[in-house]
């Protein structure tokens, strides 16, 4: 039944495309279409979410992810206003008596004056747009936030938003509205990034200089995306300057980076390459300890992108990311990294039908090896890879209806791990966990419809289908999770199929120019997840898929929000309340062995989880003072019958109170002062409530799971950004950034261990490990 739905949808899909391609304008012959691209005049970069406003009709549209817009109107004379935050608006009078092509280039306003932290598209777009629970961040703004070791980081910045929490001190892994870290879909130019962290999670893989746009969906995830329960982080790379050669770079205390943008054919083809490497290990030879001197510890990453405009209707983008971390000491080497490649083709079937076709390959792997000369030598490798084909179409039916539809097909290959001895006399023998494969498909359709001028609806339906496909080995378990036997499937055998609908619905009711009420409901399904029971996450990520033993996770989320702007839209305030229920939640049995375990599925325990919360946000967009204050009150709990004797327990990322204050103040044209202060309730932990002796060792007797809390977390960071005097006619622009992390030296616990005193085995005490005391840093950034 469901398969038939899938096939008929695909048929419908291609018929629509054909109809549109063959019968341009036949569906609305009385209307004329004005369409085009909106770009930055300086570099030709497409502006995502720029607004087009028709004054006479008091109606408008926004550009899509590729800067394209399309509006179909009755013939007539109109005044069009094209605008984008940080850019000077352009007003054009047009006579629309035939289809019109209008590409607009916008000029930036004086950056120093109009810098805005979190961008909106129109001054009150937060009120008028139907989407809620989303935040768009501009790279310029992220760069002003004081950062750990001056290393500005997208993932650290989003953790300062309401409803988003760091899972552990200093970590880039994050939890959105009570979801776990692996429930976030992180896309870089549409390719999944499986492990977005460098250096054990302290820095993210995203190089700011290569990134153009970051948007986080905490709920109300568009029907075009799925596969993860809790959030979508959509990161878009810069396209590359189409007009002139330009460069960006920086020298920091952890890493340095350089980006070069080259127009190969002006206004047609451009190329961007961006690289970054850490150099902490350069200083290691200065260490006193000779073992430390021999260490190597680094990461690097490279972003590449080429794009070519064939004509007004066709444009091709090829983007790629690869990065790697390595840690090498005198006897072993550990390394890990991501690689993504995406090839996209933008095609205009008609002035109203915009399409994008994408082919993606995304990979993550890690390896750990011990030197060949050692008797304990071995090489352990694990990897996963995706091949993905997708297509997204936008049909700009009328100014009141924008239809989006498309499909995605993915082929996952998981190599959970294999160990091979690298020396004949190795103590270890070969150990291989069989690879497994799966297919994940989805089709979707959604429409954003303005019912009346004050009420906009966005509704969509996604249908996803997941299949385990051979060659693979399935281990069968009894009700006590003990393995009974295993079944081997031949290549191409489909041995389990899951599928289901994922409805999405949101509405916006505009109360007046400065206030609105929004509500949304979404269902999401997740078929692949990470086997990880630590809080911070490690490079040894192991993803595994749904299977006959593991049901897909499902989340239902409802949210309602009130949005109100004050002082001519310079202060935005909002309150959002959400409730999320997740079923088939996966947790792990006590003392689970997750890595290098063929019977991983026997370590899993299933139950449900739910979370709810209220998010308060005040955003300032004043002339000199920009930033936000957010407060989140939330709860995230789990109930797994076979864990904690079936009692409800708080999820490890449950932090009931969470406050972030992020501000920057323009002291003068050349000096900006930024500050952020964060506070959150300590994360839940399991502590001993008693102890006993066994064979000379003092062994803890533990409380219920997560019955205690770590000490509360708080920290203040500050930064100054200094622009040297600008000399006229100089192309080189420099910028100094001085920052102090953890100004008042709060010792925030990273972990608390209970240890036995070596000198007196009867004595036990609690020992806290903290990572960062006060850390000053200097970064120099430049662009030309």
């Amino acid at each position, binding site marked *: 039944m469901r398969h038939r739905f899938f096939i008929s949808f695909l048929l419908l899909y291609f018929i629509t495309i054909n109809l549109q391609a063959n019968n341009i304008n036949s569906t609305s012959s009385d209307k004329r279409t004005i369409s085009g691209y909106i770009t930055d005049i300086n570099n030709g970069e497409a502006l995502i979410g720029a607004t087009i406003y028709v004054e006479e009709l008091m109606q408008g549209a926004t550009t899509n992810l590729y800067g394209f817009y399309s509006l179909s109107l009755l013939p007539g004379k109109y005044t069009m206003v094209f605008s984008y935050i940080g850019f000077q608006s352009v007003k054009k009078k047009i006579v629309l008596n035939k289809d019109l092509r209008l590409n607009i280039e916008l000029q930036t306003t004086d950056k120093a004056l109009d810098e805005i932290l979190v961008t909106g598209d129109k001054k009150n777009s937060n009120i008028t747009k139907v989407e809620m629970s989303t935040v768009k961040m501009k790279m310029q703004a992220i760069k002003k936030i004081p950062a750990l070791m001056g290393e500005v980081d997208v993932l650290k910045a989003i953790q300062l938003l309401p409803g988003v929490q760091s899972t552990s001190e200093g970590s880039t892994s994050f939890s959105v509205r009570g979801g776990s870290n692996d429930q976030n879909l992180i896309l870089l130019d549409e390719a999944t990034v499986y492990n977005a962290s460098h250096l054990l999670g302290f820095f993210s893989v995203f190089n700011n200089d290569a990134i153009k746009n970051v948007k986080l969906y905490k709920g109300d995830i568009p029907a075009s995306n799925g596969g993860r329960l809790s959030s979508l982080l959509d990161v878009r790379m810069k396209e590359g300057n189409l007009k002139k050669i330009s460069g960006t770079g920086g020298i920091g205390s952890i890493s340095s980076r350089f980006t070069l943008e080259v127009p190969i054919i002006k206004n047609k083809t451009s190329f961007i390459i961006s690289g970054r490497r850490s150099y902490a290990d350069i200083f290691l030879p200065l260490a006193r300890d000779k073992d430390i001197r021999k260490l190597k510890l680094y990461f690097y990453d490279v972003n590449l992108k080429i794009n070519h405009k064939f004509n007004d209707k066709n444009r091709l983008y090829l983007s790629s990311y690869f990065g790697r971390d390595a840690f090498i000491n005198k006897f072993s080497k550990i390394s890990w990294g991501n690689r993504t490649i995406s090839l996209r083709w933008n095609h205009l079937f008609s002035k109203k039908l915009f399409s994008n076709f994408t082919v993606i390959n995304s990979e993550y792997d890690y390896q750990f090896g011990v030197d060949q000369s050692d008797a304990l030598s071995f090489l352990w490798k694990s990897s996963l890879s995706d091949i993905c084909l997708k297509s997204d179409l936008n049909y700009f039916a009328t100014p009141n209806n924008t239809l989006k539809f498309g499909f995605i097909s993915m082929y996952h290959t998981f190599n959970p791990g294999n160990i091979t001895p690298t020396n004949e006399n190795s103590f270890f023998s070969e150990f291989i966990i069989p690879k497994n494969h799966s297919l994940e498909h989805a089709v979707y359709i959604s429409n954003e419809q303005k019912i009346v001028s004050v009420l906009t609806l966005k509704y969509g339906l996604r249908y996803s289908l997941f299949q385990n496909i051979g060659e693979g080995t399935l281990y069968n378990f009894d009700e006590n999770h003990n393995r009974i036997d295993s079944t081997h499937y031949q290549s191409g055998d489909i041995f389990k199929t899951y599928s289901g609908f994922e409805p999405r619905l949101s509405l916006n009711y505009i109360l007046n120019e400065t206030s609105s009420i929004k509500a949304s409901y979404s269902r999401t399904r997740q078929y692949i997840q990470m086997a990880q029971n630590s809080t911070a996450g490690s490079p040894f990520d192991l993803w595994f898929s749904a299977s006959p033993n593991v049901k897909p996770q499902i989340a239902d989320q409802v949210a309602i929000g009130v949005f109100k702007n004050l002082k001519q839209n310079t202060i935005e305030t909002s309150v959002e309340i959400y409730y999320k229920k997740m079923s088939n939640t996966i947790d792990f049995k006590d003392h689970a062995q997750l890595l290098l375990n063929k019977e991983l599925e026997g370590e899993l325990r299933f139950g449900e989880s739910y979370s709810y919360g209220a998010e308060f946000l005040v955003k300032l967009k004043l002339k000199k003072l920009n930033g936000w204050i957010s407060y989140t009150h939330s709860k995230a709990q789990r109930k797994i019958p076979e864990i904690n004797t079936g009692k409800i327990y708080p999820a490890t990322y449950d932090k009931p109170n969470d406050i972030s204050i992020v501000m920057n103040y323009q002291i003068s044209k050349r000096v900006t002062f930024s500050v952020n202060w964060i506070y959150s309730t300590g994360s839940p932990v399991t502590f001993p409530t008693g102890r006993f002796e066994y064979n000379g060792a003092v062994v803890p007797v533990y409380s219920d799971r997560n019955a205690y809390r770590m000490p509360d977390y708080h920290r203040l960071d500050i930064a100054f950004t200094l622009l040297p005097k600008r000399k006229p006619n100089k192309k080189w622009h420099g910028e100094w950034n001085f920052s102090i992390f953890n100004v008042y030296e709060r010792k925030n616990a990273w972990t608390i*261990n209970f240890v036995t005193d070596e000198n007196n085995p009867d004595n036990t005490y609690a020992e806290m490990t903290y990572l960062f005391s006060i850390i000053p840093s200097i970064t120099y950034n430049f662009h030309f």
Partner: protein
Amino acid sequence: MKDKKYTFISEKNISMILIFAIIILCACQEKINIKLDETFTRLVVDGSFSTDTAIQKIKLTTTSDYFHNQPAPRVSGAKVIISDGDTSIMLIENDNASGVYETDNNFYCDKNKTYTLTITNVDIDKDGNYEEYYAQSSVVRPNSEIDSINLTYNERWNMLVIHSYAWDPPTKDFYLMKVYKNGVLVSDSVSEYFVTDDVLFNGNYTNGIASQFLDQNKADEIIRLGDIITLEIDGINEDYYNYLLELQQELQGSNPIFSGPPANVKSNINNGALGFFTTYSLTRASVVVKELPDK
């Protein structure tokens, strides 16, 4: 079955290496005061009986508050009976060591028999009524036939590696290995036990597999010429093997990057008691140190 051997690679080693990386970067440690709740008192049993003919002991203690900071309270006056189904023996409390109950000097566990332990006459929860505790040990496992051992020096770790040469039975077996220096147990705590299954050598000759270590950085493990080094291989059952692994995991500390949530170690004694009752077979082999490693 689970290839627990690789726990050795995966969790301990890697986390040690990477945590080291973090520590050289920035971590600091300090003692802190934490207020912990109290929990109810439970009986703790520490009893392992071997196939060796000897006085064999069981120790009964109770749990205490976590920061009790004194030796565990002993449980005196209990009636402790061990039975193989045919005969039952009552253990006698040692006059000089309260809470330690002993067999006479010709007790040994019979291979292929199942033993039960019954503890009565104790009132741990102080409600005025005696409780009864019961545990059963699986069949005593066969042991490997140990031929010999030898020593090599590993310069990188500055430790002596004890290699064993033994035949492993074709069954699924589990081993606990301990080392003695001149008759004194050197691997004297659970963390120093070497616990392994037979995945790497099932049914085969172990052919010099690394079985225990003498850390030459530790005073009590440094070897001298003429020292007698003895390797003890205990054939243990799977339950006890899992118990020891869980215990070792809980004793090694945790960190947010690699550790899962801590959890109680599962006991095989009923009625909420902790600890373990087990039986095992035992073999030993010795070697005399004839040369010292070049350092």
